[in-house]
């Protein structure tokens, strides 16, 4: 990490070896296509390199920080793709639903914890976390998409995160 700060280029290789699996997994889960995931990973690493001076260890873990950079880039990517491909008025919801259903097919969890974690979350909680975390929905968009009250979305998101943080400990 210090070497990353010092802009030592071999640090990039170390960084890649340590974090690429976690970051690639998240990126792939969001953009869903392997070639695009590669682009985003590349872009993210360059961005992390240049923005490293802005990282403030007092505000949170390095992992959280880089994860958010990757998430934001990935979400931007799918947003711009939807913008390019479809008419915004009618196509948006359909294409999102289609992508969500397509996800389990292309997605092969390799990490040992996934099953454990998904068993702990009830499907409704998982769906909400996925929409918020992997699709970049706002809470009111989730409420609209699932046709449930905003309050329910908030409670479910909060309970789901509670469940997850028990697993951390």
């Amino acid at each position, binding site marked *: *990490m*210090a070497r990353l*700060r010092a*802009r030592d*280029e071999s640090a*990039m*290789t170390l960084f*890649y070896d340590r974090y*690429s*699996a*976690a970051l*690639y*997994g*998240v990126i*792939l*889960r969001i953009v869903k296509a392997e070639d695009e*995931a*590669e682009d985003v*990973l*590349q872009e993210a*690493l*360059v961005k992390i*390199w*240049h923005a490293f001076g802005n990282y403030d*260890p007092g*505000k*949170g*873990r*390095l*992992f*959280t920080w880089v*994860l*958010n950079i990757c*998430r*934001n880039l990935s979400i931007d990517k799918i947003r711009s793709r939807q913008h390019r491909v479809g008419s915004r008025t009618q196509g948006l919801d359909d294409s999102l639903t289609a992508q969500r259903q397509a996800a389990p097919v292309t*997605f*092969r*969890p*390799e*990490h*040992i*914890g*996934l099953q*454990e*974690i998904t*068993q702990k979350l009830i499907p409704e909680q998982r769906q909400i*976390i996925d929409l*918020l*975390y992997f699709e970049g929905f706002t*809470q009111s968009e989730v409420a609209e998409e699932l046709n449930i009250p905003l309050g329910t979305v*908030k*409670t479910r*998101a*909060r309970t789901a*995160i*509670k469940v*997850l*943080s028990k*697993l*951390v400990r």
Partner: protein
Amino acid sequence: MENIQDYIESGILEQYALGVLTAAEQAAVDALAAAHPAIRTELADVQAALGLYAEAHAQTPPAALRERVLAHVLRQIQPVAPAPASALRADVDAVAQARNLAAAPATTPGAVVRPLLAAPAAAAAGRSPWALAAAVALLLSLGGNALLYARWQAAGQDLVALQNDQARFAATSQVVDKQLGTLKEQNSILRSDEFRAVALAGTKDAPTARARVLFNAATHRVYLDVRSLPALPAGKQYQLWALAGGKPVDAGLLAATTAAGDDLQQMKDVASAQAFAMTVEPTGGSAAPTMPIQAMGAVAI
């Protein structure tokens, strides 16, 4: 302070961690987190939870991608690297040229530069050697301090990184421990002599169904091990029944993971049984079995 608890309960920290807040809202959260340790702790928990969820989706990229991405990234981040080399080259050339020019002072403008350079050198020679020594000592000390400070900071950051790593490993090993415990328990059941295995074979309504009941007549324990069961529509669930003296006794509902064959499930205790059978019931189960029976097997006597 009660307000803090309300604030934490409001769900804004989750929104912060999910990145759905505006920049202004984010700054407000940052400020509160800096002021209140309780908020800071809660926020760290939320972020760790999401981090765990993200890591659960980890997927090692293809090996070929590593070379491509790293090569590309390294190319992008060091466009400066070749520049100093060529700049240096240019400097060397310039110096060499200046020397050549100096060798023939009368004919070139290079000669004009020389006296200017010589003048400060003469002035410096005139200064007290003590002042020079002090200046050098000060510079050395400054340099040393800067170096030590940088090392100290680097050590602190390494420590944080290591702590993060350690926390991640601890989380993973906890999960593994738990799974190991479950597997050990299941293994001891499978190896125990007290348990009698009852094979359930599919009826004509579910010819592919296959499962095994492990029944301990002494402790009345019942475990179920599914090999394969047809998938059920939403709102339906498999239920196990023990047949004792011709009467069906509820032996419990199959969890989704059990029906999928992922897990050995402990069912309800059964006092005695001549056979076990499985039916499809509405989610939540029924008091009496709904025909037809999907799979069935008799306890060997």
